[in-house]
């Protein structure tokens, strides 16, 4: 039975990365591809084995939690609870990635200097549920620190976001 999980999807992604290196190596001249090919072939083979293990749902002995099942309703309950737990974990994972995506989006749009206080304020207010004054105070402190680092200490102007570039 094929098991599609986050782990197997990630292994397939890594398989794709190794395959990219192998395919690209084939189009190179003999000298630049010598060492990469020597590494890419076994790496691809190792990840392929891992993918097949993930897809077969291979579990090492001792990793499975033994549960005593008394009736059919327990089976459904166990399944439902495990599904809720998986969904919760996935949700939490998405929240973490979403906050990184927000920071990246802010840098892309607003630039490096304004995004630092804006992100800090949003994080403190929304994720940390901190009060308005404290969030604003910490965000102002972060802006000051960023200003010292990016403007006063750096020799070049910090990255400006797309909004300012579009305006020009």
């Amino acid at each position, binding site marked *: 039975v094929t098991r599609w999980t986050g782990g197997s999807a990630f292994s397939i992604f890594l398989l794709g990365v190794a395959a990219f290196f192998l395919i690209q190596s084939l189009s190179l001249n003999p000298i630049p591809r010598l060492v990469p090919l020597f590494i890419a072939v076994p790496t691809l083979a190792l990840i392929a084995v891992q993918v097949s293990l993930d897809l077969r749902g291979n579990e090492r002995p001792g990793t499975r939690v033994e549960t005593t099942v008394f009736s059919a309703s327990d089976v459904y309950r166990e399944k439902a609870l495990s599904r809720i737990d998986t969904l919760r974990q996935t949700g*939490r994972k998405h929240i973490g990635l979403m906050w990184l995506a927000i920071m990246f989006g802010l840098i892309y749009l607003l630039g490096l200097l304004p995004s630092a206080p804006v992100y800090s304020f949003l994080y403190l207010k929304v994720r940390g549920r901190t009060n308005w004054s404290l969030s604003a105070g910490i965000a102002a402190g972060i802006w000051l620190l960023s200003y010292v*680092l990016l403007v006063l200490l750096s020799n070049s102007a910090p990255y400006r976001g797309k909004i300012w570039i579009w305006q020009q």
Partner: protein
Amino acid sequence: VFEPVFRAAWEGWGIVFSWPNLLYPVVGTVLAMTFSAVPGLSGVTLMALAIPFTLTWDPVPLMLIFGPFIGGATFMGSVTAILFNIPGRSSCAAVLLDGHPLAQQGKAKTAIACSASSSALGSTFGILVLVALMPFLRESTLFFGPSEILMLTVWGLTTIAVLVRGSVLKGLAAAGLGLLLSFVGQDPRTAESRYILGSLYLRDGLDLLPVSVGLFAVAGVIELAAGGRRMISEKSRFEQLPGGVREGVLAPWRHFSLFVRSSVIGTLVGIIPGVGGTVASFIAYGHAVQPAKAPENFGKGDIRGPPAPEAAVDAKDGGALVPTLGLGIPGSSGTAMLLLALILHGITPGRAMLTNNLTLVFVLIWSLFLSNWLTSIFGLASVSPLSRLTVLPIAFVAPIILVLATEGVYLAKTQIEDVALAYVFGVLGYLMKAHGWPRIPLIIALVLGRAFERNLQLTLQLHRLGRIYFWSRPLVLSLIILSLTTLAFHYFQDRKARKVQGVLEL
């Protein structure tokens, strides 16, 4: 041979420890520590900023202030690694492997104190080796050719086998991916671009700072934002934090042979130009794990973890001065800036400097020595306020860590692509951790991969041309034996552990 060296050493000592000359190393150390508290900023940046202001200075104050810039900045990079999982420089990435888990257990005081004491002792070791080698400075650098560096990287790569935990398959595959990623950029021999997807930015290869900050700091921030942890340490009040400064300070003494071995590795790597502190720190970490009792504790907050890379990185500074002063070849980015400053002042490093300006050389050495001790003393004094940061709520700390990591990565080269690279590796690092793929083999392979390929190609070419005979070089043979011993030792240790486990299970 020895008499002029001893005389110059004594004169140099007198100059450094006289008033008001003593002020220069103190001010330089404070400046270097403050500056390098920001991840991404290092003594190299500080030197670049200082060169225009010091052009009119005499050579003696220049040496007195540049010594601390080389040595004083290393320790603070480890502090941010321990507290926030942000390596201040890529060479500090190995410190966080056990340093940050110690902070998570509430033992930030112990980890920082251990780092401070290992830093001072490691640098002292490196400087003692430098002073001992002074009469033979030029000859000692010439021992290391491409084949020796190749075997050194092979030895470093064998440590991956030791460090792999859990699934061996995933560990080896991660190492393979790390090696493949290290090939991104130009081929070292033909300069042909490889795997760059048409991007000019990738032509220089993947920079280690954004990659290591991404894999550990950014991935850590995603984890903090995703998880239910309330503060970095498990404790909510400073008074509840276990572990003490004394335990940390004594750690390198308690594991003295580990400290000496790590310092030897650091000094040797420092002597070889262009290899760098990152390689030294990871080889030393791998070497700490390999012969240790209960190696499974490493990576989970073992007190033996931080001293090995810290001692190696600081010992490297003394070693890096060997090719710089002996041949005029910089052993690291810090010594490259020092070389530039010397040349701008009309001083040519190499034989002329060692003959005509030997006292000046010792002024630099003693200034470096003093600044390393001052850094550790200041570091120990600031252990308590620094460890308080680990009991702050995550809601306050997480955005600050991400902002500092982002700006630190950007400031290193002022390239916005570095930030994107750090974020990509942040997501990769987070997913690797979430799905049980080890990150340490990947980063070690990435660090060593470039040096491995470059020196492999050079060695093959020299061997083919008949310039060297690979198997007749004593240092190469020693390193081959060392690599095989590492693997054999690990194999037998693993078998023994399995037998013991089998007995316990019975």
